[in-house]
């Protein structure tokens, strides 16, 4: 342990008052928590000032409630035989698909399954898919961006050419090919989307940001302090990349949900149920041809895809304002 240095009193200035500094770990923790809360609140107030931010949050909130509602309904008022999203059958209805009724607020599908139950059940998987894909993307892109900006040279060339290659590939077509070759379930789909996003465009964007952080004098200051490569990348570069990473997380959620919808519609995914599959079911039964007559087969799922995708996208835009001070209205 280093003893505090014996500093001589500064020449002209009078001796500074001796101030007691808290010695407990708890006070350190409290101070840090308070700080985190404070900066969260500051960011929150900017976010809440943007109308689209609030709107997107409300939409995401509604879908979150829907996702939580399904297991609760299944446990309480819905019996599994009738309401299971995959194996259920509405014995109370004569014709399938049946129009919305009191017992089936959004009607049933051609196989006699409750549409509302399907919708709610799928919401949960959409969230799981979107968030998994986003986390994978951001974890990869942030690391790749930071490492390739920091080390430069061949590492940088390799990752950037890889990113170019991925961008050049048509994403959905690639997923179609992959789904034909492998059985893609929800998790693998999230992983594939995450990896493509992480090594692709997001990595380039985060790398350019990391480059501007790398040349800041505080990086040099950290080196003079004795910090190694690992310290600099994880303590200085990545934390400063995180706001932007968060933003791209939001955008990745959007693209993941959208990609799932497309693949499910084409019937290429190994999923129990999803919004895309709901539309797929309606389509294979030929009900999409009937105009608006069987609207409950398409509109709930279609609207959900659109709404949740745009909510995450708009949320990202609002977050952009928090993250990117240049977009912020000046108030100092």
């Amino acid at each position, binding site marked *: *342990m*280093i003893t*505090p*240095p014996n*500093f*001589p009193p*500064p*020449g*002209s*200035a009078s001796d*500074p*008052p*001796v*101030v007691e*500094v*808290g*010695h407990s*770990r708890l006070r*350190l923790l409290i*101070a*840090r928590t*308070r*700080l985190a809360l404070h*900066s969260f609140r500051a960011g929150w107030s900017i976010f809440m000032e943007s109308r689209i931010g609030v709107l997107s949050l409300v939409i995401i909130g509604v879908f979150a409630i829907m996702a939580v509602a399904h297991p609760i309904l299944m446990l309480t008022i819905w019996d599994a035989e009738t309401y299971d999203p995959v194996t259920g059958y509405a014995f109370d209805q004569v014709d399938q698909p049946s129009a919305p009724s009191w017992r089936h607020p959004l009607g049933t599908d051609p196989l006699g399954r409750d549409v509302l139950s399907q919708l709610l059940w799928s919401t949960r998987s959409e969230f799981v898919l979107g968030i998994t894909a986003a986390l994978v993307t951001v974890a990869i892109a942030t690391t790749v961006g930071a490492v390739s900006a920091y080390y430069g040279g061949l590492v940088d*060339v390799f990752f950037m050419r890889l990113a170019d290659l991925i961008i050049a590939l048509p994403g959905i077509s690639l997923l179609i090919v992959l789904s034909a070759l492998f059985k893609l379930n929800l998790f693998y789909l999230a992983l594939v989307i995450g990896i493509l996003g992480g090594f692709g465009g997001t990595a380039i964007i985060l790398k350019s940001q990391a480059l501007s952080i790398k040349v*800041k*004098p*505080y990086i*040099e*200051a*950290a*080196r*003079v*302090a*004795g*910090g*190694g490569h690992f*310290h600099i990348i994880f*303590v*200085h570069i990545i*934390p*400063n990349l995180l706001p932007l990473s968060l933003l791209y997380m939001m955008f990745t959620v959007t693209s993941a949900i959208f990609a799932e919808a497309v693949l499910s519609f084409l019937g290429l995914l190994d999923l129990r149920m999803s919004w895309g599959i709901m539309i797929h079911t309606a389509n294979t039964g030929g009900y999409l041809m009937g105009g608006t007559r069987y609207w409950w087969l398409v509109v709930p799922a279609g609207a959900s895809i659109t709404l949740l995708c745009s909510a995450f996208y708009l949320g990202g835009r609002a977050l952009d304002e928090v993250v990117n001070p240049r977009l912020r209205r000046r108030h100092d």
Partner: protein
Amino acid sequence: MEANQPHTPPAAAEGLVSVSGLTRQFPVGRSLFRRATSFIHAVDDVSFQLNAGDSLGLVGESGCGKTTVGKLLVKLLEPTSGRITYRLPGLDGAAGQENAPLEASAIIGRQLRTFRRQVQMIFQDPYESMNPRRTIYDTIAEPLAVQGMGTVLDRVDMVSEILMLVGLTPPATFLFRHPHELSGGQRQRVAIARALVVEPAFVVADEPTSMLDVSSRTGIMNLMQQLAHGLGIAYLYVTHDLAVARYMCHRIAVMYLGKIVELAETEELLRNPLHPYTRALLSAVPVPNPEYRREPPSIVGDLTAPIDPPERCRFFDRCPLATHYCRDNPHPAFEEKAPGHWVACYEV
């Protein structure tokens, strides 16, 4: 080459930091597939020595290489050639003996950690030299934390102590603030605290006051002097401002396009500048006295970048004293024209 002989005779390296023939070139227009053919000679054959508790001002115009010298001394950059020898407490010499001179290129691994404790730097820009996401405590404790000095609680005490020392009192009100909540002067105090918290023997200060307001500038200058004097820290003060260097340093070295052209005790240099560039520089500095009349500096042309400069004196093109001899001969040697007064010029 000098780099091949790490053993320096002790007599030749009495100083805390000895620099001889230090050269650093930066390639121009290099890419992955193309080797650079041109080089900026940012620092070219620079030699000087600093003793414990000494202070040297490195003065010159922008692009003269003064900051590069500073970065070379703290090992943020590696020299192209030439050598820097340190004689720092805790740093073992090449043969393993304690407190013996050690060459910069030999400082690796465990030695480098010790080196980082003994040699610190204060940066120019108080706004950019601190990670905006980290608190003042994190910033100052960084060197302690990465070197594993003390426990978290010890560090809080050490940081508090140094905060008081740099005049940020009471420390508890500063510990957990972020840099953007502080004024420029306060941040530069934090920067000084970060450099001094490990009790270094040598500090490079890279224009620490040039971005500050007049009033906070004086505070920082006085603080640095008091602390360096009180703690026996030697420092290299890099600045473009001769007036500031006058107040901060025992000796001043004037740089021009990568070369030190003159080095002398501060007052000697101001009263009796020998090199024509030093004279020009001195006569260009405005004086805060309306009744003082300055002669216009006798210097022609504009500053150029030292990209593949010719062998002759770097100042030749702009020099009022230049002769054919200057044109036909290499850059003049750095010679002691009077006791402690070194100049590189044929004409003085």
